[in-house]
């Protein structure tokens, strides 16, 4: 900075006796007046009071200076206010800075001489720094105010409805042939024992009919490009071979000659090669399973086409690439079911009537393979049920954590069993119980009252299930009662979404050590992922129950609604980092360092570039750059080194 030095105006606040009582204000004022580059010094009783702020406003109007220093309390108290006040008289925020002589001098230095000395040092630092304060812009950016939601489960659905009802355009991308996620596969939700499909059906209908919501099902997201406010999401919609004219009347199902094991029924039931997940699904249109359909495997067959009253069958359908420009992305990919098929020496399996909880839920569901009847593999009705808690959890080989929701499901299984089977006996084998919440303990008590026998073992790993004389024998250390039952349910926890890894690759978000989406901040920002504008909702964040999943979906929607506002530009951080393209050698040391992944490499120019729309101004890149090309606005090397000089020499 050769040439003209800036003239600095200095305010000294007495803060009543808070500063004036500990620091000799006359001596301080006299000292400041003698400092080079000081345009004027003004003292005041209390600058933050209305009269004080008037004083600031009037002074900066009547006096001349290039930059202002306010030596008073902590900048965390009133710097913003003083910047606004001085801003009214044309001062850029970068030219209005506070020096903390209250919290960091007057209040912590009992010796008056030392307090004065320290105040002088800090003011000297502020004066030196002010020479290098460069005006800051208030950057803004146009943004889209719509959202793309990846995953049509309950969290995604609720987020979609909240956004769509507020007038935003929403696209739901769903990998399955229709939406509803895992909740549509259950019967009742504990502890209130509400009917899940009943809760969900009206929501699905709203989605179907909503003018602001587009559902792209049977699709896989292939790209998430751009950044907050300006995303482009691309997906491939796989060919359905059935048009939107289909209303799901099932006329084609009747005539289709091919039976296939149903994935919706977890292999416990069958469907035809042309099928829907369940009656009343959204979208209503059926799908032809190309792998198994005779028409596509080379044989002559047009049974479905002939039977369709609406001409909805279209063998010529192709995969389609869908591209959506949107403002935010909400990942609601759900959780996963852990694989417990190898537990208990392979006894687990439908054929042995040892079911994983999702399988039991299917069986008990009215839209399940048996219409809700709980029956053994051979069709007989089981009279007794054992539920093994924590199956595949709290172990080194399975999930290492407690999912927190499965104890309730484990107890619910017993209630469903007793409701559907007269005189059904239920045994729950557990070592601990997670019954958090106001209703959960009561639900547990009710189950015990109604006959569920709780058998506590001292060692989960000792639980064993063997087939003996046609019955399932369950043993565990510490359980003296002999448990011989017709059916066993393994109460499994919740694993991360099987799509999680692929989705973090697409979005650049992060997973925690368990495979769930890492939040932007563990306390202050759990709704967002580590990428600004990419939210996570539902159980893909961590195992959770239905009300929590819904809350998370609504939270994500709320965040989007509050930040992306139609007609309003996105206000961006002004103290961002930037990289001087002339100095950058393209060494890429800064890219890995950015906690927001805001820096990318421009291979054509051979330099790294900061995306100032998502930069938060932490300055870590500036401290890392070996070529001094990366700088942090308002905290440049020059400014900090000037402050240091003032502190050491002042």
């Amino acid at each position, binding site marked *: 900075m050769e040439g003209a030095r800036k003239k600095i105006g200095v305010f000294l606040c007495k803060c009543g006796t808070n500063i004036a009582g500990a620091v000799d204000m006359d001596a301080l004022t006299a000292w400041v007046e003698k400092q080079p580059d000081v345009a004027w010094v003004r003292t005041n009783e209390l600058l933050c009071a209305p009269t004080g702020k008037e004083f600031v406003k009037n002074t900066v109007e009547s006096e001349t200076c290039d930059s202002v220093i306010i030596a008073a309390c902590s900048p965390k108290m009133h710097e913003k206010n003083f910047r606004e006040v001085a801003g009214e008289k044309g001062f850029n925020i970068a030219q209005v800075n506070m020096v903390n002589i209250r919290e960091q001098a007057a209040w912590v230095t009992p010796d008056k001489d030392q307090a004065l000395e320290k105040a002088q040092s800090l003011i000297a630092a502020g004066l030196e720094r002010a020479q290098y304060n460069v005006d800051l812009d208030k950057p803004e950016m146009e943004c889209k105010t719509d959202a793309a939601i990846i995953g049509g489960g309950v969290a995604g659905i609720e987020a979609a409805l909240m956004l769509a009802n507020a007038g935003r355009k929403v696209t739901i991308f769903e990998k399955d042939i229709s939406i509803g996620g895992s909740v549509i596969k259950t019967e009742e939700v504990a502890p209130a024992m509400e009917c899940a499909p009943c809760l969900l059906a009206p929501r699905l209908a709203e989605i179907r009919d909503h003018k602001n919501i587009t559902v792209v099902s049977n699709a896989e997201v292939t790209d998430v490009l751009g950044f907050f406010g300006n995303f482009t999401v691309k997906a491939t919609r796989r060919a359905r071979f059935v048009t939107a004219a289909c209303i799901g009347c099932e006329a084609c199902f009747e005539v289709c000659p091919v039976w296939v094991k149903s994935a919706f029924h977890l292999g416990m039931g069958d469907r035809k090669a042309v099928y829907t997940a369940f009656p009343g699904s959204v979208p209503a249109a059926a799908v032809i399973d190309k792998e198994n359909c005779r028409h596509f495997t080379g044989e002559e067959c047009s049974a479905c086409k002939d039977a369709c009253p609406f001409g909805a069958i279209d063998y010529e359908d192709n995969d389609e690439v869908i591209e959506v420009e949107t403002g935010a992305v909400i990942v609601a990919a759900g959780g996963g079911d852990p694989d417990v098929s190898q537990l208990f020496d392979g006894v687990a399996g439908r054929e042995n009537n040892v079911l994983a909880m999702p399988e039991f839920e299917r069986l008990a569901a009215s839209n399940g393979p048996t219409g809700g009847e709980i029956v053994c593999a051979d069709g007989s009705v089981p009279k007794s049920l054992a539920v093994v808690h924590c199956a595949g959890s709290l172990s080194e080989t399975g999930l290492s954590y407690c999912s927190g929701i499965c104890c309730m499901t484990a107890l619910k299984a017993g209630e469903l069993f007793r409701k559907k089977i007269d005189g059904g006996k239920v045994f729950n084998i557990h070592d601990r119980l997670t019954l958090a919440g106001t209703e959960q303990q009561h639900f547990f008590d009710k189950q015990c009252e109604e006959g569920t026998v709780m058998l506590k073992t001292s060692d989960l790993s000792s639980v064993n299930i063997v087939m003996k004389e046609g019955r399932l024998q369950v043993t565990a250390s510490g359980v003296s009662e002999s448990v011989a039952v017709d059916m066993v349910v393994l109460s499994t926890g919740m694993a991360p979404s099987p799509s999680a890894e692929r989705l973090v690759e697409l979005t650049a978000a992060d997973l925690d050590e368990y495979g769930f989406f890492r939040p932007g901040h563990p306390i202050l920002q759990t709704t967002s992922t580590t990428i600004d504008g990419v939210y996570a909702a539902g159980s893909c964040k961590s195992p959770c129950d239905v009300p929590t999943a819904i809350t998370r979906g609504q939270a994500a929607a709320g965040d989007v609604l509050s930040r992306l506002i139609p007609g309003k530009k996105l206000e961006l951080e002004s103290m961002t980092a930037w990289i001087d393209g002339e*100095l*950058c*050698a*393209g*060494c*890429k*040391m*800064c*890219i*890995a*360092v950015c906690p927001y992944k805001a820096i*990318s*490499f421009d*291979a054509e120019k*051979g330099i790294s570039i900061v995306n100032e729309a998502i930069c938060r101004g932490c300055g*870590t890149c500036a*401290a*890392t*750059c*070996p*070529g*001094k090309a990366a700088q942090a606005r308002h905290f440049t090397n020059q400014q900090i080194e000037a402050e240091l000089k003032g502190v050491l020499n002042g």
Partner: protein
Amino acid sequence: MAKPKVGFYWCASCGGCEETVVDLDEKVLDVVAAVDIVFWPCAMDFKYSDVEAMEDGEMTVCFINGAIRTTEQEEVAKLLRKKSTCVIAFGSCACMGGIPALANLTSRSEIMRRAYKDSPSVLHDENGPVPQTSSSAGGVELHLPELYETVYKLDDVIDVDFYLPGCPPTAALVETAVQTLLSGNLPPKKSVLLPDKALCVSCDRNSTKPDNLKIDKLKRIHEIKADPELCFLAQGVLCMGPATRDGCGYPCVKGNMPCTGCFGPVGGADQGARMAGALGGILEVGEKQLDDALSGMPDPAGSFYRYSMSSSLLGSSRKGDAK
């Protein structure tokens, strides 16, 4: 028209900077033809008295290489400054202290001990002789220059016009420098005659560096079988490239060895501060593994400041300075 007069001098030097002039091969004949070499103790029999006899500023340009370690070197540097119009700090030692400046990590007494008493090739004698600045033998007074406690760079003792770092500067750079100086089209005073960007801008391995470079351990070059095409940092080996000026044509990297930083830091920064910052950025390890991750760099001061100790913020002066 008289040919411009040119001088070469070596202070605390290995002779490599003299060698590099010879590396001009047949082009050295053009140089010799274009100038009048009036002082070059390494190559020809010149005396200090020859320089003392010159007019002030008589030499158009004087190339001074080597660090300043002794009183003699300081005296001669000052003499040459007086007699030259333009002085170039030639080579890393003159610019930044070079390898001799690593002595700033120890002390003069330790060095004397090591050289004259504890070295494996010396018969240890606690009372054995150690060089003195003055002594007498056979009735004659002998004087030796004093070794300073600190190794200095050239501009610590005289005003320098231009800098050409390198250990040594490449022949191509010497050629360019000579041509520039003789052309009269001089860059601003105090310039470094090199691009002001890091080596990575030219290095052909930079494109192999992943954009999101993260390593979990530093390894020494002999601990790996170095991939001849992949960026060294990506292989976990310390390469000073990011914190070192471009301009050498990276022969070390082409020889499958990482850059050791001889062209010095970019932008006059502290080379160690820059590299510590950069390495800290790409090391992705938890606190518990951090020391182990760094064990593959047992001598960071030596690695970062191998050539630039005299221009470092904390390593450029030692105990008991004579200055």
